[in-house]
C-alpha cells in the first residue's frame, strides 16, 4: 500500500480566554483527492489538536454552517476538495468582517438582527384563507425562486467590501431575501419593506462590486437583486418628490 500524500493546512487560531493575540498554527496531515477541506479540519480535530473549533453540520453545502476564508476567499469548507487545494499550503481563517468567538467560529448575530429589518419573511395578504393552499403558477415561482436558494452561510457578507467598510449596511443576503419576498405573489409586505430598502443602509450602500454573487455557493445573485430594487427605490423617490403626501 502506497503512502498517502500530505498537505499543510495553516489555521488562524484565537481563544478569547487565552490572553494571547490570534496566531497561525500549521498542521501537516495525509489527504485524499476526494476528501473535503471540512473532512481535513475534522481530521485535525480528531487526530492532531482537539481544541480546534469550527462549525459544521450537513457536509453537503446545504446548511451553510462551515463558511471560512480559504486562501483569502470566502468558501464553504465542505464544498472544496483537497485535490483542488493540493499541493498547498492552505490558509484557513474565520469569515472576514465578523467578530470571532473562537478559532473559525464567528458571531453572526448582526446578520440575524438585519433579517427582520429587511423584512426577510412572507407577509400574508388580507385575503389569505388558512384553509386554502396558496397556489402559484410556475411563472410566479420563477419570479423569486433564484433568490430563495439562500442558505444564510454569510459568505456574501465576507465578500462584500461595503459591509466591511460600513457595518450598518443591511448586506447582500438580507437584501436578496427582501427582493425574494417582494417578488412572491403570495406576499403583501412590499410597503413594509420600503423604509429599509430606501435607506442609506439599504440598497443604496451597494456599489455593485458583485463579489457577493461570485462567492455564493447556491448561485444566488444578490447584486442583481439589489440593483433591481435600486430601480424601484429611485422610482418611488421621484414619485414621492412629484406627489407630496404620497408616502405616509
Amino acid at each position: 500500500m502506497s503512502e498517502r500524500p500530505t498537505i499543510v493546512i495553516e489555521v488562524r487560531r484565537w481563544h478569547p480566554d487565552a490572553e494571547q493575540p490570534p496566531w497561525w498554527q500549521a498542521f501537516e496531515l495525509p489527504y485524499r483527492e476526494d476528501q473535503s477541506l471540512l473532512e481535513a479540519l475534522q481530521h485535525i480535530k480528531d487526530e492532531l489538536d482537539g481544541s480546534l473549533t469550527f462549525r459544521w453540520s450537513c457536509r453537503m453545502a446545504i446548511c451553510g454552517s462551515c463558511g471560512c476564508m480559504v486562501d483569502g476567499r470566502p468558501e464553504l469548507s465542505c464544498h472544496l476538495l483537497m485535490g483542488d487545494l493540493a499541493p498547498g499550503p492552505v490558509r484557513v481563517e474565520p469569515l472576514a468582517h465578523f467578530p470571532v468567538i473562537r478559532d473559525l467560529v464567528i458571531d453572526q448575530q448582526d446578520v440575524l438582527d438585519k433579517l427582520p429589518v429587511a423584512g426577510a419573511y412572507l407577509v400574508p395578504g388580507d385575503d389569505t384563507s388558512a384553509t386554502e393552499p396558496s397556489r402559484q403558477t410556475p411563472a410566479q415561482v420563477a419570479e423569486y425562486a433564484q433568490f430563495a436558494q439562500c442558505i444564510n452561510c454569510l459568505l456574501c457578507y465576507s465578500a462584500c467590501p461595503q459591509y466591511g467598510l460600513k457595518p450598518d449596511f443591511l448586506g447582500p443576503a438580507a437584501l436578496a431575501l427582501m427582493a425574494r419576498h417582494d417578488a412572491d405573489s403570495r406576499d403583501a409586505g412590499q410597503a413594509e419593506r420600503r423604509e429599509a430598502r430606501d435607506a442609506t443602509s439599504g440598497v443604496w450602500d451597494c456599489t455593485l462590486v458583485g463579489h457577493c454573487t461570485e462567492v455564493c455557493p447556491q448561485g444566488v445573485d444578490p447584486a442583481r437583486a439589489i440593483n433591481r430594487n435600486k430601480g424601484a427605490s429611485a422610482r418611488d423617490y421621484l414619485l414621492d418628490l412629484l406627489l407630496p403626501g404620497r408616502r405616509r
Partner: protein
Amino acid sequence: MSRRLRRSHEPPFWLLFGAGGLLAALILPAVVLFTGLIAPLSGRCGDSGLLEHARMLSLLSTPIARLACAGFIALLAWHACHRIYHLCHDLGLRGGAGLRWACYGTAALVSVIGLVLVMGLPHP
C-alpha cells in the same frame, strides 16, 4: 433593536449616473469607430473632410442637436464623477462631505460649461 433607517438621497445621482453609463455604452463605441477607423480610412480613400470643422458644426445646426450634445456631455460627467466618488469609498478613502461636493460639484460645473460652450458655438 435600535437601528435607525435614514432615507437615502442617492436616487437622483444614481439616475444621472445610470443615464450617463447607458449613453456611454451606446454612443462611445460609435464615436470611437467613426473617429478612429472610418474617418482615417475615408481620408486614405480620398475624402479627407469627414471630420472637417464646418461639417461637424453643421451637425449642431439646430437647437435640439445642441441641447442633445450638451446633455450628452453633462450625463457623461455625472456618470464619471459618481463613479469616482464611490470608487474612493470602495478604496477606503473617507472624503466625507468635502469629497461629495468636489465630485458632484465638478459634474455640475462641467454640465454648465458644456451647455454654455455648445449653445454659444457660431451658426454655420
